[in-house]
């Protein structure tokens, strides 16, 4: 039963809508458990309708809630007064969904997902591929290397996500019934701090690596003033992004501004070509 719920958890967000969010996916995920708990079709119908109401959480962490709710449904079915046993369910479900959404968003969307891009770039850099930085250079690169970068991030990320998807179901089902069930299954605060530090270290390493690569590519082919100008252009991009973030603008603002300035200088005013990498 838990394994079938685990497989169905991959479709939690299918049917995502603005009225009830992940309700369809959650009911679909719970269906194997409910079918086992309620052999009677009327009771199964009532249970499915209960879980077709509003539900929203972080998709990887939904397993904690689903395991918990499956256990609560099983306990209610076995109870002499099912209505009383089910009374606390909406509150527990909502409390868990909110808590795990907050944890999951910080871990997966806020930290691990950007780290997959960092892993991709580091894998490429370690294998000697610098085409991601030098946009005008077309040295042939084996296809396996181009795929190895993104796959490194995907494998690490998905392994972690799969672990918590399964573990969440197990933990939720074992301690089901309380609004704090599973919240102490890991030191989330510490994990978030460690991921932030690791992400920052990787980002800093990538920035320094890219800067070094740019200087190394230019230092033997252009003079000192030109080298300084190129380093200045790069620093100007960083400052522009920092300022646009400070004013709450998205990266599109900075990208659009850079495009507009470049088009004005090199396409409209037709200044001589200027390449960052020679």
């Amino acid at each position, binding site marked *: 039963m838990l394994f079938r719920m685990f497989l169905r958890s*991959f*479709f939690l967000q*299918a*049917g*995502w*809508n603005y*009225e*009830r*969010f992940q309700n*369809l*996916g959650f009911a*679909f995920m719970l269906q194997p458990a409910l079918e086992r708990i309620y052999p009677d079709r009327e009771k199964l*119908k009532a249970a*499915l309708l209960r879980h*077709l109401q509003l539900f929203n959480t972080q998709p990887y962490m939904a397993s904690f809630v689903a395991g918990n709710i499956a256990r609560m449904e099983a306990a209610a079915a076995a109870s002499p007064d099912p209505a009383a046993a089910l009374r606390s369910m909406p509150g527990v479900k909502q409390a868990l969904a909110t808590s795990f959404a907050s944890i999951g*968003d*910080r871990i997966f*969307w*806020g930290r691990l997902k950007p780290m997959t*891009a960092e892993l*991709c770039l580091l894998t490429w850099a370690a294998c000697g591929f610098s*085409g*991601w930085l030098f*946009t*005008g250079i077309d040295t042939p*690169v084996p*296809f396996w290397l*181009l*795929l190895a*970068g*993104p*796959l490194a*991030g*995907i494998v690490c990320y998905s392994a972690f996500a799969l672990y918590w998807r399964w573990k969440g179901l197990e933990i939720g089902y074992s301690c089901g019934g309380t609004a704090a069930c599973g919240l102490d299954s890991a030191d989330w605060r510490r994990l*978030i701090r460690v991921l*932030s530090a690791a*992400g*920052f270290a*990787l980002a*800093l390493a*990538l*920035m320094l690596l890219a800067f070094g690569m740019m200087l190394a590519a230019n230092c033997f082919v252009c003079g000192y003033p030109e080298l300084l100008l190129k380093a200045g252009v*790069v620093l100007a*991009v960083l400052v522009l*992004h*920092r300022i646009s*973030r400070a004013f709450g603008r*998205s*990266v*599109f603002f900075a*990208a659009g501004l*850079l*495009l507009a300035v*470049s*088009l004005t*200088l*090199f*396409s409209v005013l037709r200044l001589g070509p*200027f390449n960052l*990498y020679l």
Partner: protein
Amino acid sequence: MTEWLRVLISAALAGLLGLDTVQAGQFLLSRPAFLGPVLGWLNGCPLEGARLGILVELLYIDFIPVGGVVPPNGTAAAAVAVLAYSCGGIAPSLSFFIGLAAGAAFSPAEYRLRSARSAWGGRIEAEVNSGVFALRRWVAMAMLTENAAMTAYVLAGAGLSVLLARVPGLARLYPGTDFAYSLMPWLGLSGLYFRFRAQIYKKG
């Protein structure tokens, strides 16, 4: 394989992998960094596909899909960028910016699809009430509509790119777009740096 068959397969693949964004899995197979080289390989330009993909990824990583937010779609962006280059014959630099715009423009379509599914709630409840518990069918229908929308969008993007490539004097834009494109890795890297720096200062 003819050009248009390749485009059709690419669009279908983008539609299939696009499901991974929200509808099914979330294994990050729909991320531009992965889709870019795959579509590039399919269309005979794996290196440029990888480059377009990772640059879209670096810029789109700035958007987090929390709550009901519909961020710009990286799958659409990478697919349209790669096809604009490979089938439209547009320079990679301009293809990249076309892709960025295409990804952002997909958000309203995604919003409409999600809004349209709001009406399903009552219909599903009525079906369950009548004793039919075929939730699987609704899940499949949601995925099929998303898949069809993404495939059609990427095909339309590729078609528009072919038309755009025929605009006279387009090449005059290339010196400007080339320079802006060469700055995009830095913009993406700085995005990663500032994101994690802000997290460190917020202390988790």
